[in-house]
């Protein structure tokens, strides 16, 4: 099943205090894809996500889910939120209960399930995010990484088709962040559409199928990670740096260590493999040094 699952068409939105947070934003999210939103603080990422979930309503333009314009009556909103879940940036504002189990069970109960079904969903979600062992602990004694997992489980338990993560890796240590990305991959492999926002260009580059760059409530650029991160002028304009993989690759290519038509690798291991393969075919620095010594000796 391919085709767009969410569409945003020329959406405008201003907060009650007059801040124009979205100013004519248009984009499409493909079913089953992994989408990353980049953009400076205040670009409108969080506001966009709240639109996708029907929490906020565009003052102009439309949001579509599954090809249908969003309607904002209670029943339609319930149906939408059942299918589009958001994991918010701050788990403390999402976890409302002191009990892990209770918090995760909240969403499934709202879907009208029986207690038995809810227990099943909760167990499944706990297992999916790997926190069975802390299910019995109070939420206020959990670490930030654990709280994020609880928040994710709370949304996963509802089994939405699209899961949106607002800055999932912010303020996590590198190891926890890495585990979280693996978890996101698992969720994506289950056939879900996964949307995240981040300020980390390396994550965006290596993880995404498609990248959107937002700026001042508009889409500044969109494309595959390779397309986005080779557009230096655009990156400069929105104050984004290049992922280190692109940096290194470009440096090697521009200095002739890689052929001009070398493909841009996506991951660290792919880049290292590329470098290793080139080293086999070309000279080695040690050869160069000994050649030089020989020349010097001859005078």
């Amino acid at each position, binding site marked *: 099943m391919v085709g767009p699952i969410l569409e945003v068409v020329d959406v405008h939105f201003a907060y009650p205090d007059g801040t124009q947070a979205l100013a004519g934003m248009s984009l499409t999210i493909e079913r089953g894809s992994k989408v990353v939103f980049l953009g400076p603080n205040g670009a409108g990422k969080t506001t966009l996500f709240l639109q996708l979930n029907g929490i906020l309503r565009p003052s102009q333009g439309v949001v579509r889910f599954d090809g249908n314009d969003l309607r904002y009556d209670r029943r339609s909103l319930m149906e939408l939120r059942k299918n589009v879940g958001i994991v918010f940036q701050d788990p403390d504002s999402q976890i409302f*209960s*002191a009990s892990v189990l209770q918090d995760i069970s909240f969403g499934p109960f709202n879907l009208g399930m029986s*207690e038995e079904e809810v227990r099943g969903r909760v167990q499944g979600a706990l297992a999916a995010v790997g926190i069975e062992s802390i299910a019995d602990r109070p939420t206020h004694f959990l670490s930030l990484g654990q709280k994020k997992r609880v928040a994710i489980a709370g949304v996963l338990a*509802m089994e939405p088709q699209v899961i949106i993560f607002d800055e999932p890796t912010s303020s996590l240590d590198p190891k926890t962040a890495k585990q979280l990305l693996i978890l996101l991959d698992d969720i994506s492999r289950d056939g879900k559409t996964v949307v995240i926002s981040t300020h980390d260009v390396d994550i965006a580059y290596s993880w995404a199928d498609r990248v959107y760059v937002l700026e001042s409530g508009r889409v500044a650029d969109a494309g595959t990670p390779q397309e986005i991160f080779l557009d230096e002028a655009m990156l400069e304009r929105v104050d984004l740096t290049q992922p280190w993989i692109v940096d290194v690759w470009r440096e090697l290519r521009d200095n002739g260590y890689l052929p001009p038509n070398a493909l841009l690798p996506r991951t660290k291991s792919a880049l290292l493999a590329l470098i290793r393969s080139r080293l086999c075919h070309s000279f080695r620095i040690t050869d160069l040094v000994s050649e030089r010594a020989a020349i010097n000796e001859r005078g």
Partner: protein
Amino acid sequence: MIHIDQYAYANRLRAVHPGEKLAFAAITAGICLASPSLIGQLAILMTMAAATVAIVGIPWRFYLKLMLVPAAFLLAGIVTVAVSFSSQPDPGLHGIDLWGFAVGIRDRDFVVASSLVARSLGTVSCLYFLSLSTPMVEIIGVLKRCRVPAVLVELMTIIYRFIFVLMETTRQIHTAQVSRLGYHSLSASYRDLGQLTSCLFHRSMLKSQMLFVTLSSRCYSGEIRVLEPRRRLSLRRGLLIGGIDAVLLAVALATRGWQRW
């Protein structure tokens, strides 16, 4: 507060049905409040303290410290009840003479004051037994099953959770202030405390708005339903509770007349 909560989640009675613990604490507290006898109240205090330390498994040092908290308030309270002044020499007043005033304690007041202390500490010991052995979430669950209105139950759930969020926020703001030389003098302390309070209020408002948004995004529709842990009621423990409370009640009634000197 934090420690009480930690014990509530990790104690030897954790797996016991919360209803049993709540019933035990509530009935015993009732007996203590209604008990006409000092001996009865002391017996309750001793029983509950023993149960909390020996059965729930709370270290006795920590328990004593907890008991000192209400004791400090009590001390301030009973002084006004127990101590009397008199401008004439009064044979009923056991005490000292201070510049022509007799300051001391009357027999009757002593009885009232000691019964006040015993009654308060006895009831507090029941409360401590409950709060050290049972997580708040489970207590709330029992209240819910007892048909306490849903609004109250939901409020309790959320308030309890956000006490901790509020404490954490307070700590963060306080650290931010202190790291920039806040509270360095008395007048600065007043000002900084004021700022802390207003900042806290503001953030709480934002948090509550945010909570509504996050709940809504999970299909909140005005009612919070959650899973309750599955715990078995035990007949044996029920009988034990009944037995202990019957004995305590009997003690209270049997010793009714003893304290009239």
